């Protein structure tokens, strides 16, 4: 699609065509739980770091799927790995490993 005349301003629209399939596959391989989030927000609600700065595993997972990888990393960089999120996740996601894995996969350039 062409952004008629508005090319200078980056579109804020999510562009699923930019989704990085290979990286996601790599992520799912090392932590299959990346797929099973149902976005309930429990992790973000209890987050120890989230009290201070924006920190959200739920959002990071969504950002990755929405091709906003850098934003995903940003959402996790304050994480203290305390594990509260793993205690409350209704899907039993291995949250700490997922956070580490997202970092490993997506911060590698």
């Amino acid at each position, binding site marked *: 699609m062409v952004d008629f005349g508005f090319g200078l301003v980056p579109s804020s629209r999510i562009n699923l065509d930019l989704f990085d399939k290979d990286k996601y596959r790599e992520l799912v391989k090392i932590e299959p739980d990346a797929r099973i989030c*149902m*976005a*309930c*927000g*429990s*992790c*973000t*609600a*209890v*987050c120890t770091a*989230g*009290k201070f700065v*924006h920190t*959200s595993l*739920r*959002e990071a997972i969504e950002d990755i799927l929405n091709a906003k990888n850098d934003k995903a990393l940003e959402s996790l960089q304050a994480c203290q790995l305390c594990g509260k999120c793993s*205690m*409350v*996740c*209704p*899907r*039993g996601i291995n949250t700490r490993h997922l956070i580490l894995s997202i970092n490993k996969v997506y911060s590698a350039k």
Partner: protein
Amino acid sequence: MKNNILIIGGGPAGLESASQLQRMGYNVILIEKSPKLGGHLAKWDRLFPDSVPADEVLGGLLRGAEGVKCFTDTDVRAINRLDKSYNVRLTNGITVLSDAVLVASGFDLFDAVKKEEYGYGVYDQVMTNADLEAYFKTGTDRRIENPGKIGFAHCVGSRDEKAGCRSCSKVCCATAVKQAIEMKQAFPNAEVFCFYMDLRLFGRHYEDIYLKAQKEYGVRFIRGRVAEVSENYDGTLLVKAEDTVAGKPLKVTLDLLVLMAGMRPSGVGKAIGDLLEMPVEEDGYFAVRSGIAASQRSPIPGIFLAGAATGPKTLPETLADARAAAMEVDRYLTEIFPDAKNYKQLVKERW
């Protein structure tokens, strides 16, 4: 010859199928473990979506089942299968020779204590949906004293692998909306918040009460699971969740938190199922012959199922299921059961 049919469970499903089967001319024996008929319905005040009094519905069910031999405070002591029938010894000393057994053992409410972080039984101001119905019925509860802010936590013990229950309990969303409205009616100045993951109200008129809750009562619906509850010095609750629509963690001080405890397979039912060697599925509910085509038949010939024994159901669904089960029993007792010579063959073909 009048066939004996044993119905296990005196809740809405058991009562409705008893009533139907009796009309068909069968000799129905209904047993109920607790002292009272009616199951959870007897403990409820009003029903969604139209706030019909539960007593009214239960009264109708009981009238329909008049004439049925009902044994309350009665459990199954032993069951053994004869050629085609079941020899059932009851705890009241009676032995029933039953040609078909209908299991309508229903559900248990999830024990909210098990959801540690919500502090049910620990914090003073946390209650369950059942507690709230009891309050509506009796008008007293030490926890409710003109609450200013009330929260409803959906999915307590439902859609939660940690609580051992993956599935949705189907009725809690509608119940929460109903109870939210009722609380607003009782305390018009109260602020009411519903914390949900997905609003799953799909029956006829259910969307209407959702709309009513928003439009007429100003109930706030927040998409995010309640994740942590702590208590302030003054006994009020600090509830944390994420507003996933806003994408921000939130906290709110509440005077009352109502936990929408979900449905779990009945423990008593499970014990009876073990006696009958009835298979259960991964979710703990009884397995059926076929989830679509034969959802009232157990894989074991001669055993039928109705209501929430085969998974969460709303009350209208339960009643419809009970009627269907009655039809299935009738069909079995007229088409398969009487033919002693070809019984096994018929079971193979038609069960």
